[in-house]
């Protein structure tokens, strides 16, 4: 699956899910890339962004199930 990663205010990247390196295995033993793995591909830490799918925040340790992901950088200050 190809996933569109839209980093708001910056770049939009198309990432081939098969090419994403996976940090852990899921319960059934099949390695599935998570949103955190996807963030690593665009050099972002899960601690500096929020990941939204269909406008809803998702836990970053979950397997990527959507072909469009929005990434919001945290705004410093205030």
């Amino acid at each position: 699956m190809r996933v569109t990663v839209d980093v708001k205010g910056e770049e939009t990247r198309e990432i081939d899910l098969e090419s994403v390196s996976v940090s852990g295995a899921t319960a059934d033993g099949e390695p599935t890339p998570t949103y955190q793995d996807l963030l690593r591909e665009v050099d972002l830490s899960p601690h500096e962004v929020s990941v939204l799918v269909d406008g809803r925040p998702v836990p970053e340790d979950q397997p990527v199930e959507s072909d469009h992901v929005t990434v919001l950088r945290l705004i410093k200050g205030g």
Partner: protein
Amino acid sequence: MDCNRCGEEAVMHAAYSGAHLCADHFRESVEKRVRRRVRRDDLVPRDATPENPQTWVIGLSGGKDSVVLTQILHDTFAEDPRIELVGLTIHEGIEGYRDKSIDACVELADDLGIRHELVSYEEEFGVRMDDVVEDDPENMAACAYCGVFRRDLLEKYAEKLEADLLLTGHNLDDEAQTALMNFLEGDVEQIAKHFDASLGALSEREEQGEFVPRAKPLRDVPEKEVALYAHVNDLPAHITECPHASEAYRGEIQQLLYDLEENHPGTRHSILAGYEDLAAIAADEFSGDDGADLRECAECGSTTTREICRKCSLLESLV
């Protein structure tokens, strides 16, 4: 993925605790941590009564941190006649940036029905940060000037508003960075001052007679969760970064902490917990040293260790 506490869909995962939480349980978890911090830091003194209410001034910039802090403190104390909240907003003179975040502050204060005060560098000091960064007579980062001016006005107005406490929205990431920076700079006296200025429980701090005590009740909540709290509650937080922001060293430390946190979840919590314990010991060690050489600034009369305070000397170099 389901929430650990109910069947709803989780909106977040906290790697440091292993928790997956839905929006409602996430909200509850953030609010609980802030209230626990208020209790542990003894922020509500025993002698506060409805007849003798405490005034808490919140540094309200309109960014996510101060907006979330104001909202949670309001929800906690709205029905409590012992605590009165006042939002204090400072306009630094940054075109386009601060104007919008002030709208967020006014909207929030209106929604919550709390008193709101707005002051500006221009009215107070006759300078605007947009001009300061152009002049830059001291060859410093914008934040170095801005921090001095902001602290001066926060202190001055906290006193003017007869505040018992000055609260700011520093989150876990902010404080873990500061802790690590102070540690890496090897300045133990600075760590002791940090304890007495804002970190220690009010009852354990050395008396800071000249200054309104400060507190940071959001410091157990990671920055990401503060942003998520603002998002799930649809709070009117302003979402633009300051155009002059440039704290190179802090940025380096921040990146280091992101990397550590990814491989060792909980690093920020343990840094801050250990730092607070060490800071308490350091404060005890330096106790009594403080305050001996404090005097009044010859220009503005504010409390300083120099003849002329840092703010006045910066203003002088800007003319």
